[in-house]
């Protein structure tokens, strides 16, 4: 599924917001089959790192390669569909049903429409497929995001506090998803405040403090 090669290679990357640095001189390498835990205090820059790896932010300086694409130029547009990112806030359209939300993505990505129902079923939302996203509970919306990832089967997972808002029966979804992805030769980066849960999953962990990784 993945060509052999490094999945992430960041060299001395910095990210700025206006005049202040959020991340500074970040070095990170992730190989196929690895799951990385990212820890750090509130506001340390964990989400910023994930969005950088998702090609959604451009570095202020330094060079980085994700899935073979240079973060500093237009190559990054070509690998986006191979990245699965779940952020703090669900990115559903509130007026559309869960089914419609996922079908939209399926059409846009060229995924077979049947995958929508099966992945909603996989996260336990088959019965709520026709509910508008705005009337779904927070946890249901998060589950729907996981359904989107299951459907798209990305090689590189970027999960921001994936266990939060999920009930006891659903947290295992996360672990399963991560395990399956790395076994297939992909990789994952997990941000969390829950060390014990992530340590079980992660190949290695990094900590962000003062804008740098350690």
């Amino acid at each position, binding site marked *: 599924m993945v060509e052999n090669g490094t999945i992430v290679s960041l060299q001395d990357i910095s990210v700025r917001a206006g005049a202040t640095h959020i991340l500074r001189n970040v070095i990170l390498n992730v190989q196929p089959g690895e799951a990385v835990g990212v820890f750090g205090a509130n506001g340390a820059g964990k989400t910023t790192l994930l*969005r950088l790896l*998702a090609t*959604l*932010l*451009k570095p202020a300086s330094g060079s980085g390669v994700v899935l073979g694409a240079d973060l500093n130029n*237009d190559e990054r*547009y070509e690998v*986006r*569909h191979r*990245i*699965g*990112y779940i*952020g703090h*806030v*669900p*990115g*559903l*359209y509130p*007026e*559309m049903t869960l089914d*419609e939300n996922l079908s*939209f*993505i399926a*059409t*846009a*990505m*060229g995924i077979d429409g049947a995958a929508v129902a099966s992945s909603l079923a996989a996260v336990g939302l088959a019965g709520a497929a026709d509910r*508008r996203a705005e009337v779904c509970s927070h946890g249901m919306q998060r589950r729907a995001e996981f359904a*989107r990832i299951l459907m*798209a089967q990305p090689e590189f997972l970027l999960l921001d506090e994936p266990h939060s808002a999920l009930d006891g029966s659903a947290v295992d979804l996360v672990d399963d998803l991560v395990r399956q992805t790395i076994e297939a030769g992909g990789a994952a980066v997990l941000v969390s405040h829950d060390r014990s849960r992530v340590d079980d999953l992660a190949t290695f962990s990094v900590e962000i403090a003062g804008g740098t990784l350690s």
Partner: protein
Amino acid sequence: MRTTFRTQAMAITKRDLMRERRSGEVLWVTLPFGAIALLLIPIAIGTDRPTLRAIGIGLFWVIVMLFGVLIAVRQAHTETQAQRDVVALAGIDPAAGYVGRALASFFLLIGFEAVLAVVTVALYDVPLDGWIWMPLVMVLVGAGLSLLGTLAASIVSTGRSASALVPLLVAPLSVPLLIGATQTFEALRLGRSSLTWTLMMTIVVLLLAIAGVLSARTLQESG
């Protein structure tokens, strides 16, 4: 490409039209406001029948222009960062996104124009010569405004204080459309050819389409 440009653009169009159908923003707010505007003007400027007949069609185009741009720009406010992220990571070509959004606005605008045209004819008793050109001009104006508004919206959404830009970007480009629309009928009334005007509008529409498609990637990056 895993999917075609066309599939992606159509997916975006379908999404926008579905969201509009559910929220009814254009149908229930913008459209009635446009109609109210046409209603209020005669009240405000005094109801002198010949004057109204003379200015009716011009006012129609001004209202279409103003509200049309608002319809097209509305997208900038209805999409959250998280939603944009999802679309970006679905690998949707920004240019397909531009075309798809513009197309959805185009359909809404055509509907808007059609309803307002009926209201204008009813209220202002405007002369109907050359009405046969109306569909063409309406399509050109609709296309131009939707492309323009979509472009303005994507520039705005890349940075917050950039909203200052919307009117400034929209004004110069909507003027040729407005002039084209009004002059087409003026020319017809005077028995002259309106080809130059239609041509000018077509050029503006093409220009906007090209500019939008070419700048889509550039503008996608979050500021």
